[in-house]
């Protein structure tokens, strides 16, 4: 188990290096002059040239990349922001918790609502309830969350004046963005749970459980759900990692000072270190979540658990 986790953690290094290389390349082939963005139009060409030299932007691409990667991966030094001149790591530290909070609220909401809907739909397959829920889920899946966010702002903030439309100064401020983010997730989670549960309740061992005299709700909640959990966990992990990286537009819509807003600002300002730093942090947490998901599989399914134990052990027990 420990060996497996270590192996997976080591695998994250090439993944992150790959992400860094891709983002680095994209930034450098994108048009625009970071010096102008950082110093302003009025600055004289000499000062800009001096600044470029200072930032190492005149060096060959591979040297720049090597230097950056070396600093990040050996010293965890993400450099300083072009626009604020503060260390990137501080900028991220100030914003990351906000994004995580909004995402966690959204994911919790997603699954607290989505999973039960999926179970109900599966148990009452083809009933009116099932059809109604699945049509609603289809509508939910089809709405982009930034649009839902805008609609929510218009309805609940502008017209009804129930909730604040922007910023993040208290619990009330989480409601609209989290719900907007969760809506798509709820729909996806409901559909995923439904198909997963449907798959499982047709299995023979469910009939065995019924034949044993197990009560129907227990058949579903204990025997079926535990088996249906793997796709559900995958879905939760994926939606969490997508949200952490992809809540950008929704964050902008609600003016939430999180990673998404920061990334969008940085791209506009051609703030290379900020773009890179944010991307790497997001990539790191996405991979960490996926690792966590894989470990959760082992917790849920003993067949996967036994794969984690060394091959030696398996050979011994089979004999």
């Amino acid at each position, binding site marked *: 188990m420990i060996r497996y986790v270590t192996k997976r953690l080591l695998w994250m290094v090439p993944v992150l290096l790959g992400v860094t290389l891709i983002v680095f390349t994209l930034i450098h082939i994108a048009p625009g002059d970071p010096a102008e963005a950082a110093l302003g139009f009025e600055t004289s060409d000499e000062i800009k040239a001096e600044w470029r030299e200072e930032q190492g932007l005149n060096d060959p691409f591979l040297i720049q990349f090597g230097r950056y990667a070396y600093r990040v991966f050996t010293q965890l030094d993400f450099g300083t922001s072009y626009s604020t001149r503060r260390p990137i790591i501080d900028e991220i530290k100030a914003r990351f918790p906000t994004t995580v909070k909004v995402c966690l609220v959204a994911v919790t909401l997603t699954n607290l609502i989505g999973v039960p809907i999926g179970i109900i739909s599966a148990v009452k397959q083809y009933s009116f309830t099932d059809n109604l829920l699945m049509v609603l889920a289809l509508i939910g899946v089809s709405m982009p969350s930034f649009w839902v966010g805008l609609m929510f702002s218009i309805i609940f903030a502008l017209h009804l004046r129930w909730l604040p439309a922007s910023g993040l100064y208290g619990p009330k401020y989480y409601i609209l963005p989290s719900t907007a983010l969760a809506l798509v997730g709820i729909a996806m989670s409901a559909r995923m749970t439904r198909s997963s549960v449907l798959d499982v309740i047709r299995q023979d061992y469910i009939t065995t459980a019924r034949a*044993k005299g197990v009560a129907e709700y227990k058949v579903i909640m204990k025997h079926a759900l535990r088996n249906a959990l793997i796709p559900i966990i995958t879905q939760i992990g994926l939606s969490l990692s997508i949200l952490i990286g992809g809540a950008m537009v929704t964050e902008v819509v609600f003016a939430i000072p999180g990673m998404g807003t920061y990334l969008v600002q940085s791209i506009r300002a051609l703030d290379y270190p900020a773009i890179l730093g944010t991307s790497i942090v997001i990539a790191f947490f996405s991979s960490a979540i996926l690792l966590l998901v894989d470990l959760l599989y082992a917790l849920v399914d003993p067949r996967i658990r036994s794969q984690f134990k060394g091959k030696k052990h398996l050979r011994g027990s089979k004999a």
Partner: protein
Amino acid sequence: MSEEKTLSISDLVVEYHTDHGVVHAVNGVSLGLEARETLGLVGETGAGKTTIAMSILKILPTPPAKIVSGEVKFEGQDIMKMDSHDLRKVRGNKISMIFQDPMTALNPVFTIGEQIAEGIHLHQNLKKGDAEIKAMEMLEMVGIRRERFTDYPHQFSGGMKQRAIIAIALACNPKLLLADEPTTALDVTIQAQVLDLIGELKERLNTAMILITHDLGVVAKSCDKVAIIYAGQIFEYGTKFQVYAETRHPYTQGLFDSLPSINKEVPRLKPIPGLMPNPMDLPAGCPFHPRCPRAMAECSERAINPTDLGDGHWVRCINPIN
């Protein structure tokens, strides 16, 4: 009460309503079973054997299945009329079932021990710990070391899984055991072992049993009575001796003719010509008449009722073999 039969089914009709039409799986089956008796339910795949067994426990998936009519009386009570609470007290406690495929009949995420103890805990008013001790005893009874209690199904071989399923089924000393082709999915070398085990435990626990199979050899070995099923109807019913030695139904005869024999010099096995009719579209009259060598004009004209031949032997045929 002592006069009461353990099980008596009368005129059971079960259909599956699918998008493609109505499947007539069981068409008026009646049978009875005394305490401690073993009845062999013999028929081809798709004859409705499993549907009958699952109707007895009322665990057919509804929909698509629909029990159209019929009574299933267990110790005098009609299972078809029981509410879900009473049904659960019967399932796994008084009537239990061994399933066809041990590979899929165990829940992969719970230990073997948990799965045996679950039924015991449900039905016998035992605390979790006591139920587990009882479950370990059951494991040993089916010939598995008690240390394997905490193993998961994937750590068991096919034969061991089937033994574990037998342990689950017998854990609460049921009055009736439904064994649905318990050896079909197993290796030939394991089949005999598992059958012997079931037979032995059934004797020890005084359990009546319905053994579903398409293997006439298995029936000869372990059953008292035999019912030959075809297209959801019982064609011939009687003691093992009556059905094997005094075969009256042409279909039963056809089954025996298609078996290889050690004593007779047979150049070629004689299969029954044709295929089982599509249960969505059964032929009128006797469903076997298109394949029957003794068919008469009347066979396709009206439904055939069973004829009592005396001594509990009866046959659903108007032109039986003599």
